């Protein structure tokens, strides 16, 4: 019957499209190195202030054009709330939370990660061009949520 032929074609086509899409994603990981956050360190969420490196939040140079940003998220700000790096810097963020779940979103970059109490979020991005980027909490964290933002200043 004709319908069965069409149906079979449609199902095969669907399967092929899905497999091709999935292959493209795997290639983006293998070739372009687009990784997802994975298991890293854990810490006691009630002792963030005493646990290195979060006892000393800040931005630290780690090599030529390389920086580490150690940040603590809390209701309703980041510590530090402003980060300054020269253009062309690769910044690796280590972030945790001292209270509820927060997020870290820097629009128009690949920085988009959850910040969960007891867990360390590690994300890396290279800021090529000078400018200011808002650093935004994108997980609901209480009444002051919309006011929880900081900025990354990239100096030319």
């Amino acid at each position, binding site marked *: 019957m004709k319908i069965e032929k069409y149906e079979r074609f449609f199902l095969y086509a669907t399967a092929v499209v899905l497999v091709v899409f999935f292959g493209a994603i795997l290639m983006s990981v293998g070739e372009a190195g687009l990784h997802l956050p994975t298991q890293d360190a854990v810490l006691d969420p009630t002792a963030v202030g005493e646990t290195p490196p979060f006892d000393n939040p800040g931005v630290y140079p780690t090599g030529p054009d390389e920086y580490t940003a150690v940040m603590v998220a809390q209701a309703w700000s980041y510590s530090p709330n402003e980060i300054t790096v020269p253009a062309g810097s690769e910044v690796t963020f280590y972030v945790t939370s001292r209270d509820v779940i927060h997020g870290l979103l820097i629009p128009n970059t690949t920085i988009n990660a959850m910040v969960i109490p*007891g867990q360390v979020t590690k994300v890396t991005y290279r800021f090529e061009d000078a400018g200011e980027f808002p650093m935004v909490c994108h997980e609901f964290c209480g009444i002051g949520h919309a006011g929880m933002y900081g900025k990354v200043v990239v100096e030319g």
Partner: protein
Amino acid sequence: MTALMTDTDLATAEQRTWAKWQIYLGLFGFGLGIVMGLLQAMERLGLDLYDEFQLQSYYQGLTLHGVAMAIVFTFTFANGFLILTSMRGYGRPMASTGLVRGSFGLALAGVALAASAILVNQATVLYTFYPPLQAASVFYIGATLLILSTWVTLLNQLLTLKAWKAEHPGERIPLLSFVSLLTFLMWGVASVGMAVEVVVFILPWSFGWVQGTDPLLTRTLFWFTGHPIVYFWLLPAYVSWYMMIPKQVGGRLFSDRVVRAVFILFLLLSTPVGLHHQFTDPGIDEGLKFLHMAFTFAVFFPSMVTAFTIIGAMEDGAKRRGGTGILRWIGKLPWREPSFVAQVLAMCAFALGGASGLVNASGPVNQVVHNTSFIPGHFHLTVGTAVALTFMGISYWLIPHLTGKKLWSAKVAVVQAWLWFLGVLTFSRGLMGAGIEGQPRRVPAGSLAYALDSWHLYDLMTGIGGTVMFVSGVLFFVVILRTLASKVTGEVYEMPLSETMHGDEGSPAILDRVGLWVIVAVVLIAIAYVPVFLNHAYQFKSPGFSLF
């Protein structure tokens, strides 16, 4: 009159009444939800009405919106509608009238408790309620009762299947009852995650019996259920699309076998996919995220089968009504029938919803859109339209069916459906555009200190589209309330039920072995989740924070 009715008739009549009240409770939730939706739309247009409505914050309104729409409306409508379809399929009442009543009672109590906590601003945690943000215990108890109401319906369906089998040895499970049962079986398996989250971890912590909780663990348990919940929202709509729409367009369902297989695939594949909501979470192995991504792509497959089968059935109907050509037959569909129009527009929105869902499911692309406005843009096309507009379309025959009253103004109802459709296209385009430009979700976008210029046009689209959806929702209630206010006509409004071209004689008997399929589903879930729970670094240390 009563003396002439048998016990079976009496049971049927009473069960129908309770199912009707479930539907009414669902519509009440929907009504509350659209008012909260309007407040959010207005906020984006620069008009903050939260004070006028005695609400503490945007987030209190958003919690009410999410709980009313995604839990109350969907759960109670599924309870009511699928009790009715089960009965119709088996041609007998449900095994237990007490359980039909109990399901309604639990849902009503759940709504009352959850709503009271939210209304006094003691549960502004959004419907995702991630610990360690902590609501009043009564909110979690309400949520538990709502889940229990669905489990009671599942239990009743299983008892009814057993009773029916005893009366009909060796017969195939009627297709309508089969799909109704599979919907609840899928949910029964999937909801275990959220049930454990709430009962084992959150409630003792919210009562103060234990000091700390594990935020990543509870979040993972939430998403164990939080993705398949979308299929629990969707499958009652699929029941209508498969079993009723072909009849409503004068066509036939292509094949019994395909429908049974599709619902089994949803039972198998809905749950082992939850990590695709946690791609950007720390503390979860990247390889496991890719495993869940593969399952997520697989669960796209039965929806594509559905698209083919339903469009095929509609073409069959249109051609039997004199339609011709490759596409011209579309004009012969019943475009003046509100129940059909609402549901076919819901399907069109679902095509976009499905495509954007695939975007969300693709790990590296997800990093662009995760927790941005793109996500609500996506799910207002799926649950917010594919499901909600289908439920409105179902109501257009179901309310007359349950009350014996004629639908008030089919014309207004058709306009209502189109308004919702055009509204959501504008609304979701706005949210998706803003999301791609980096606007976070769950924020009062109209008053953000850090708003980017590129978001303003999109916020305008979201605000206008949302307002149009609200107007459409009001028209829906005008039609329903004027129908209810009319007199009983004495006519019988039947449940539309499709014939199949290829009936159950061609369906392998193994498709009816529901116990077997549940076991396969559990095995797949174990493959996807046992490594997640084995790898997890357990630490129950986070105290509760009530920051609202």
